């Protein structure tokens, strides 16, 4: 399995940073997921070969990290923090609003594959709560209006 030139370049540089091959594993899996959409059987096998591990050892690592996944999710992954600092500022209402707006529940994707919704643990936006992450983008001091704007904006972008 070949990855993009950029990712191949990253991999060949990163392996030189550590005394053991497997040390690249966690960041590499995340980068591959970003490119492929999920850690597929093929991707896992490829990483295992390159790091001289068994497929099972790679899967074992994947299952530990909450950001790593073996199945693809919607193109725009909305991860709403409901941990304590966000909870105190109405995160439950925010999460409910997202569910209604998208018509999906926790850990579900819209049928068109555009949006995925997930309740997550603290994302480090406590002083700007409530907050969510859309892919790697932080959205803070949320209100239902801001969420509508975000989601409608993304829908519009897709239609163009």
């Amino acid at each position, binding site marked *: 399995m070949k990855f993009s030139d950029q990712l191949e370049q990253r991999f060949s540089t990163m392996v030189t*940073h550590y005394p053991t091959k497997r040390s690249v594993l966690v960041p590499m899996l995340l980068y591959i997921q970003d490119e492929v959409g999920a850690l597929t059987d093929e991707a896992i096998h490829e990483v295992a070969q390159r790091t001289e591990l068994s497929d099972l050892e790679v899967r074992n690592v994947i299952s530990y990290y909450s950001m790593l996944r073996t199945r693809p999710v919607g193109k725009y992954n909305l991860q709403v923090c409901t941990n*304590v600092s966000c909870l105190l500022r109405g995160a439950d209402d925010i999460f409910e609003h997202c569910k209604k707006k998208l018509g999906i529940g926790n850990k579900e994707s819209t049928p068109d594959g555009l949006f995925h919704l997930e309740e997550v643990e603290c994302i480090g936006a406590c002083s700007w709560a409530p907050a969510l992450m859309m892919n790697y983008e932080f959205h*803070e001091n949320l209100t239902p209006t801001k969420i509508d704007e975000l989601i409608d904006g993304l829908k519009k972008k897709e239609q163009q």
Partner: protein
Amino acid sequence: MAYLVSHPDEVKVVSKRFGMGATNLDRYLELDGYKAVQKAISMGPDAIINEVKASNLRGRGGAGFPTGLKWSFVPKQSAKPKYVLCNGDESEPGTCKDRLIFEHDPHAVIEGVMIAALAVGAKSGYIYVRGEYRYLLEIMEKAVADAYARGFIGNNIFGSGIDLEIFTHSGAGAYEVGEESALMESLEGKRGIPRIRPPFPAVVGLWGGPTVINNAETLASVPHIILGGGEWFANLGTPRNGGTRLFCMSGELEKPGVYELPMGYNLKKMIYEVSGGMTKGRNLKGVVPGGSSVQILTPDEIDVAMDFDSMMKAGSMLGSGGVIVLDDQMCIVRFALRVAKFYQHESCGWCIPCREGTDWMKKTLTRFHAGGGAAKDIDNLKYLAENMLGRTFCPLGDAAAMPIISYIQKFRKEFEDHLDGKPCPYEKAAEPALV
């Protein structure tokens, strides 16, 4: 992007360059950048460690271990390579300070890692950034590349004959990896399962070599100590608690935000003056002063100095600097349930008391808050939590147990008010199902 706030009582040391464009290397150099590391080279390892010891700098990740002392544990001679590891896995609920450091002053972190490496004789440093902080990792990557391009890192740094490599490394979502031994496992490409200690990382750490692990804020403080002197830094704070701290104020406050205040600043003032007090129409119910892992304080317990020792005396901990302020619209049982759910989600399952304990706490609190509680549940919860304390490899078990015990001890009546199938009396409306 994280927003900046300010208050006249702030003493800006670590946040000195925030909002000043210091991500740009030339700008950083104008703002005294890379002067500390050059001074450190001329000082030599022993003098660096003595200066940091004199500063009374203590670990900003939460444990508050004296940094200079930690560095002094690294053996001078070692057959295996030595390493410095910067912990930027910031995940403690209520904590969002390292984000600002990476965003506004990435070179200060690099300089801190360099000085730590000079102090202990390490040739490589790693900056571990939590996976969710991708935009910050990119800022750090660029800063490292810029520093390499100028020859500040690499071979023969500043003509000293010393070689020093620095690398960035991304996590992929795991609270437990913020614990130092789990962090090393993660960097080595494994599940973040904690290691048993001794041996401590200073002796046997990354790939078996002696390793210094410090929080990003700790390391970002170091260049200022080298330039300003240990005594100056120590005098900013209280005895044995040197310097300043980035306090992350969250909850229903008029002006939440991250403020840099001297160690020992009064907690009550932090809430009512610095953060502008409670949001209009809300009253204070309690304060969790150091991230979700620490014990709650009631409103009559907050007239206290925010340093490691004073907070310990007050029956809580300074922790990670995440000050979570609870208002009177929050039900303590509901809050406890959210805390328990977090630790249940993050427990790696390696140690049985933590794996089973967090799960039972979450199950019991879910039932209890929904009105299915029995009187004996309250003491059972406390008993369960008490039996987790000190029985796990890493402190996650303690971190889950300590707050729950404190909620029951200090707000028992709120638990009792949930008995007999009554709906939660502390919330405006029925809250949506949690799980």
